[in-house]
């Protein structure tokens, strides 16, 4: 019987809820493991889960410097989508979507995945043509996409300003019905519990302070809780990639750490049926199950490892939200926060063996890491277990920049603040 079920809920209710087990243990680190995963965020935890589930490697430690879910997995706007243009991206994110669709069942943990659709608004005929091209690519790659006209959009989103007098009038939109949102904390907790139940040690408050080496080969890590050895050390630390890789002597990477802010309003009655993005600038908003508007926009635009942002960007994001929904002018903001994004030079991630022997690297998620959580861990686990990438993540190499085979969805070139 599953640990969490209607029956177990009833049984524990009748016995005073005294018999629930913690979702994961708090083990002390062992002196050595088969695999160490540095970083207890979404990607690190899903990597550990799929190492155990798909590859039978259970002698694994996940090392997290803070508490579980304290980084970007708890700081995003919870959007899950796979509306990409290039075949490499479509293959990867469609794989992620298929894992999302079965995730609650797979983990026996409700991640509240809700396929309420994402609608990208177009404000010029050229932008609409571009969306048509992207929609065709998505459908060609096995995904789902529909072009909507302003009347259809107005019916879906009654509060949206679709008037011809808007500063950036809506000329249409691209809808991906299978996209949606998931409860981000539950994703971290579900993967942690799933990995823990399969024997993985999740070690919180354990900061990696250096790497153990035998010549070039990485043989373990030094941490705030002592030395831990492992045949394979996998790094999945998102915004901290630059900092952690310097500890291994890798001084330069095609990554810049940038700051992204996000916002939640007070609770409202249901007004937004799905996720909607503004194409006149950059804004994405959805409504949480509690009723709060969850939204964000562009990066602050300068290198930063501080998990807090500045006010000019706050003003810009609010202006964009009000350009879409003038009625939100009187909604009060509940809270805002910042996260550190590992912006790559082409806007696509890196999931690879190396760059040193015994080491594996997962980074470059820009600000799209949350939706990739299942496929990222799935592909990274394969790469670690087999010492070679799966065909799905084979294009996402570290050396693609120097070899000229970039996966630049937005065509922005090596300007990370614009991806």
């Amino acid at each position, binding site marked *: 019987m599953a640990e969490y079920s209607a029956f177990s809920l009833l049984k524990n209710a009748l016995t005073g809820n005294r018999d629930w087990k913690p979702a994961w243990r708090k083990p002390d680190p062992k002196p050595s493991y088969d695999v160490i995963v540095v970083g207890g965020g979404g990607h690190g935890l899903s990597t550990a889960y799929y190492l155990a589930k798909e590859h039978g490697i259970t002698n694994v430690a996940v090392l997290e410097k803070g508490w579980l879910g304290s980084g970007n997995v708890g700081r995003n706007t919870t959007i899950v989508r796979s509306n990409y243009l290039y075949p490499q991206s479509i293959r990867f994110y469609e794989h992620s979507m298929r894992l999302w669709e079965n995730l609650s069942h797979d983990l026996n943990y409700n991640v509240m995945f809700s396929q309420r659709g994402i609608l990208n608004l177009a404000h010029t005929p050229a932008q609409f043509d571009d969306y048509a091209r992207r929609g065709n690519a998505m459908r060609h790659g096995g995904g789902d996409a529909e072009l909507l006209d302003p009347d259809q959009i107005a019916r879906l989103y009654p509060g949206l300003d679709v008037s011809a007098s808007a500063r950036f009038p809506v000329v249409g939109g691209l809808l991906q019905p299978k996209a949606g949102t998931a409860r981000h904390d539950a994703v971290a907790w579900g993967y942690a519990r799933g990995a823990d139940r399969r024997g993985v040690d999740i070690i919180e408050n354990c900061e990696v302070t250096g790497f153990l080496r035998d010549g070039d080969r990485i043989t373990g890590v030094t941490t705030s809780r002592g030395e831990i050895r492992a045949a394979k050390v996998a790094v999945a630390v998102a915004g*901290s*990639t*630059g*900092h952690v890789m310097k500890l291994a002597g890798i*001084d*330069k*990477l*095609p*990554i*810049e*750490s940038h700051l992204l802010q996000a916002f939640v309003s007070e609770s409202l009655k249901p007004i937004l049926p799905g996720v909607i993005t503004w194409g006149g600038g950059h804004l994405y908003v959805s409504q949480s199950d509690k009723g709060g508007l969850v939204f964000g926009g562009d990066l602050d*635009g*300068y*290198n*930063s*490892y*501080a998990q807090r942002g*500045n*006010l*000019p960007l706050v*003003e810009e994001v609010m202006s964009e939200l009000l350009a879409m929904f003038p009625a939100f002018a009187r909604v009060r903001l509940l809270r805002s926060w910042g996260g550190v994004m590992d912006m790559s*030079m082409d806007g696509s991630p890196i999931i690879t063996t190396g760059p040193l022997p015994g080491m594996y690297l997962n980074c470059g998620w820009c600000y799209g890491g949350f939706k990739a959580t299942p496929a990222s861990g799935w592909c990274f686990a394969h790469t670690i277990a087999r010492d070679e990438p799966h065909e799905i993540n084979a294009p996402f190499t570290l050396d693609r*920049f*120097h070899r000229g085979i970039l996966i630049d969805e937005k065509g922005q070139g*090596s*300007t990370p*603040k614009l991806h």
Partner: protein
Amino acid sequence: MLINCPYCGPRDLSEFSYQGDGNRTRPDPASTDQAEWNAYVYDRTNIAGDHNEIWQHAGGCRAHLRLTRNTLTHKITSVSFARDERHKKPHGHRRSGAHS
């Protein structure tokens, strides 16, 4: 964040535009060394701490500025005109012919 422009004085962040990492050195334009150009275009030190970077006072005097700003705290410890160091650049003028 306030940036103390040496010409205009302390001004709000919104007047400035970020030009990027100031640790990079553009190779000689005549250079055909692919590794050198790749490193210039794609590789970053991405420092957590005092960061050397270029900003432009786009909404003010339009001068390019070199800042030292801490990427963990956003504290700015030095601001100077980027033009003042032109003479120090190894490839500030175009040389004829390729070099390795």
